[in-house]
């Protein structure tokens, strides 16, 4: 304890954390939250009922936590995966049978992805039935819907990456659905697949979408979503 106290009084600690320790007043407590980048997404004051489990079922935070798990496991999976034919399928099989704990990692990624779709959807239901989309929160509802769409697109693009029969036909069907879009359908499908059929280009395109473009949008929108909750007066 004495050691931590000593650390908290050093110049280095002070330069990182602006709040003077020890905390004694309510103002100090509020300042801890206020002065920290990672904590300041919380409102300075929280209503007691908003922390109750049955109020939100923590669905938003569960979704965010699953996104973190997916990011970490996904980055690790990238180390053993090449988005090429036939490497992709072989790498996926290697992850299952050759790489230490590879199967665990892959399953964690897979199950988290399934759970994230479920939790994001339930989160939407919770917000809907509580009427938390009403003014002034209309725009955050829209952001939430975009986040749901990105979640689904991440699932869809990730589906091709193992490059087995299931992936191939699921993405064929998906690309043909895109083809039904009026006027730009053909073009859209061609851009998505990088050709008329699924091939090398498709795999790389889906890989880049899955690992770079969609997660980047996701992170930005999640940050905005959280910030907006706080600005609109906390959870409802």
């Amino acid at each position, binding site marked *: 304890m004495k050691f931590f106290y000593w650390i908290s009084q050093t110049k280095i600690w002070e330069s990182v954390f602006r709040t003077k320790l020890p905390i004694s007043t309510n103002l100090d407590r509020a300042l801890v939250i206020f002065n920290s980048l990672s904590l300041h997404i919380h409102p300075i004051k929280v209503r007691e009922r908003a922390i109750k489990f049955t109020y939100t079922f923590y669905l938003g935070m569960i979704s965010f936590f699953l996104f973190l798990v997916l990011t970490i496991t996904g980055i690790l999976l990238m180390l053993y995966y090449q988005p090429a034919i036939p490497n992709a399928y072989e790498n996926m099989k290697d992850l299952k049978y050759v790489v230490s704990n590879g199967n665990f990692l892959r399953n964690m990624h897979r199950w988290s992805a399934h759970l994230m779709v479920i939790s994001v959807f339930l989160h939407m239901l919770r917000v809907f039935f509580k009427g938390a989309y009403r003014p002034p929160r209309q725009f955050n509802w829209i952001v939430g819907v975009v986040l749901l769409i990105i979640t689904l697109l991440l699932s869809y693009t990730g589906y091709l990456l193992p490059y087995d029969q299931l992936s191939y036909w699921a993405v064929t*069907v998906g690309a043909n659905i895109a083809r039904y879009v009026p006027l730009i359908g053909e073009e859209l499908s061609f851009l998505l697949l*990088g050709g008329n059929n699924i091939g090398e280009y498709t795999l790389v395109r889906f890989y880049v979408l899955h690992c770079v473009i969609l997660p980047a949008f996701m992170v930005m929108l999640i940050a905005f979503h959280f910030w907006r909750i706080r600005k609109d007066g906390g959870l409802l």
Partner: protein
Amino acid sequence: MNDDKINENNSEENVPKICRRKFLNTMGNTATGIVLLGGLGVTLDFLKPNVILEIPKEFKVGPIDSIQPNSVIYEPEQKAFVVRDEQGSFYALSAVCTHLGCTTKWNASGIGGNPKAIISCPCHGSLFNKKGELIQGPAQRGLDKFRLRLEDNQLVVNTSEIVSDEEMILKT
């Protein structure tokens, strides 16, 4: 009051007055807009591959003497059925389901208790007869028919030429 007078003067002379700030802003925004639009166009162009390694549109089957009447040849690469009917004439069908693009299967004795349902799609259960005509959805239309021609006793199928029911038959 002064402002009003100046405006009146302007309207009388009917010369639109652009100040330096507005001029520079317009120029700058226009230039940025052009560059952004150009960048978007160039990027879209970049995203469309110019060379795609896909199998040729034309392929050959034969010699025709070795193909029995009332038989079918499935070309997995081209996803096409080449059929010789009882009368000995030929036609070629695309094996790609018109619903959402899965590859259909030829079942010689029919499927699901329907002897006419020769071609079935594994994805969503569309059924077609042996001429590729729709029996059961979710597909909305029959299978595509390819143009066939005879060349040195061999059949040449062109998968880029989709023809009507009358044109698809090649009599021998």
